């Protein structure tokens, strides 16, 4: 279920962007050697939390080491210094990028769910759009970005357009799978017992689909950030991508990497604080209902 959005062919294979889901799947497939069997200090040092924090601290150390060993690479201290020095630029540019993202994501959410649902519900629409969606996924965002710059110059519409065309297909595929996995028998039974359509939708269709929609929306969000960043980089006068480009032209790798770092923090924060809890919530009923059926 974790990788439903990606496996168009229904073949196994995990998307690393959903590391949580993949690791969970691995653990349920192979519940080997629980580290809880060890004792005391050893047990504390080999616990999952200790492992995660060891990795995090090591990563920062490694970054610092690379920064001090190689001139071209700015270390973490330099990045923090740069950002505090230019803190007045921070919020206005972040806001520009977030504003584009909000616009784009609203459009993506509406267009993607509507088309995805229609494709799952009616086979005529499915066959009509399947190949087009496949082409849409294969199209690289950066060529869209270059085209957008050529078409609209520095206009605000560029980032939103590119985000929509490159991220919507992902949500469509995922939503389509969700719509197709709605239990047909249950639906027939509800119709036979004259359950109102609105109630069918609220209690049967929506719960099944929400998980797929949110999972697809999560990947679409990631794609949208990347697309917006690209357009801002190639042709814009404000935003995080523009800042990265500006400092690159100014010959400051530190500035460039710092702005990239800002973007990364925003992406991870949105994913961890908004998307993951939403996805967990959407998946919760499934665990309860399987427990009930057993």
């Amino acid at each position, binding site marked *: 279920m974790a990788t439903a959005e990606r496996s168009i062919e229904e073949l196994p294979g995990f998307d690393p*962007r959903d590391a949580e889901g993949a690791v969970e799947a691995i653990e349920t497939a192979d519940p080997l050697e629980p580290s809880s069997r060890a004792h005391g200090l050893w047990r504390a040092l080999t616990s999952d939390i200790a492992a995660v924090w060891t990795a995090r601290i090591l990563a920062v150390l490694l970054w610092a080491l690379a920064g001090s060993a190689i001139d071209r690479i700015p270390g973490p201290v330099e990045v923090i210094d740069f950002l505090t020095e230019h803190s007045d630029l921070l919020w206005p540019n972040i806001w520009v990028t977030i504003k584009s993202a909000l616009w784009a994501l609203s459009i993506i959410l509406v267009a993607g769910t509507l088309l995805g649902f229609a494709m799952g519900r009616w086979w005529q629409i499915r066959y009509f759009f399947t190949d087009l969606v496949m082409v849409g996924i294969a199209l690289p965002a950066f060529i869209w970005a270059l*085209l957008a710059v050529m078409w609209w110059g520095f206009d605000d519409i560029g980032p939103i357009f590119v985000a929509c065309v490159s991220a919507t297909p992902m949500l469509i595929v995922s939503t389509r799978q969700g719509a197709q996995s709605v239990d047909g028998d249950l639906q027939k039974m509800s119709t036979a017992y004259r359950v109102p359509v609105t109630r069918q939708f609220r209690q049967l269709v929506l719960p099944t689909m929400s998980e797929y929609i949110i999972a697809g929306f999560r990947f679409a969000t990631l794609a949208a950030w990347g697309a917006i960043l690209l357009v801002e980089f190639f042709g814009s006068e404000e935003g995080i991508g523009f800042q990265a480009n500006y400092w690159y032209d100014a010959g400051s790798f530190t500035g460039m990497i710092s702005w990239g770092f800002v973007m990364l923090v925003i992406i991870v924060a949105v994913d961890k604080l908004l998307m993951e809890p939403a996805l967990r919530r959407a998946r919760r009923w499934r665990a309860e209902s399987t427990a009930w059926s057993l």
Partner: protein
Amino acid sequence: MTGRTETLRLPTVQVGSFLRSRAFARVALSILGGLSFLGLWAALSEWKFEPVVLPSPFAVVENMRVLLSEGLVVEAFLKSLQKTLMGWGAAMLLGIPIGLLMGRYRYARAFFHDFVYLLANVPLVVYAVISLVVFGISDIGPAFVVMLLVLPAVSINVAAGVASADQGILQMSRAFDRRASVVTRWVIVPSVLPFLLAAARVSFADSWKLEALTETFGSASGVGFQIHKAFTVFSVLDALSWMMFFVIFVIVVERLLLAPAERRIFAWRNPGGATES
């Protein structure tokens, strides 16, 4: 015997019903879908925009033919493919051991969890920027960032492959004192291989996009470099042509190479062979 003669007659009898069948409708509708998109594009370029802004699909096809006959396309794609494969090779070298550890030890799973998550969630532009910062204009840059991008997919899927190895067979091998090399060869490798291919399928398109993007930022050869050239002279026609080549390449590799190979290699797991949805 009678059954056989009946099946022999089937094709000729069913032409009429084929035209009314779901399979025909499927093909017809998907062709209709493609045509209406092309129609929309052609109409927009004909009546709404200047040809410089949005060239017609016919002009793009003609331009693609010219580019192809110049030999530029094949050369650029081979160059890019070479860099991508270098990245993939490095990712395999690093990712397989990490994946084996992650599949075997809970500690490794927790340790590498954040790396996998982070590397997979970095936007492609940031990777391209890193390549530019660390390597400048070179061939190693694209290969290096492709490695970073592919690494999480390889490790996660190898780990899943290890976890999917039949526990019963593993226990039996231990009971019968099979050597580790024998177990690896006959149990672990066959379990992991399909998942490696799955990793290729999951992240081939992304790795290819990243490679080309990195080339647009700083490289002197390859598909991305050509696309950047089209951008610097503001040629929408060239950009669209390269975009089409790009799409055709990705779809051909995914549909005609990776997906069938994977279906075949996974075939032993479900003998029914009903993988198509």
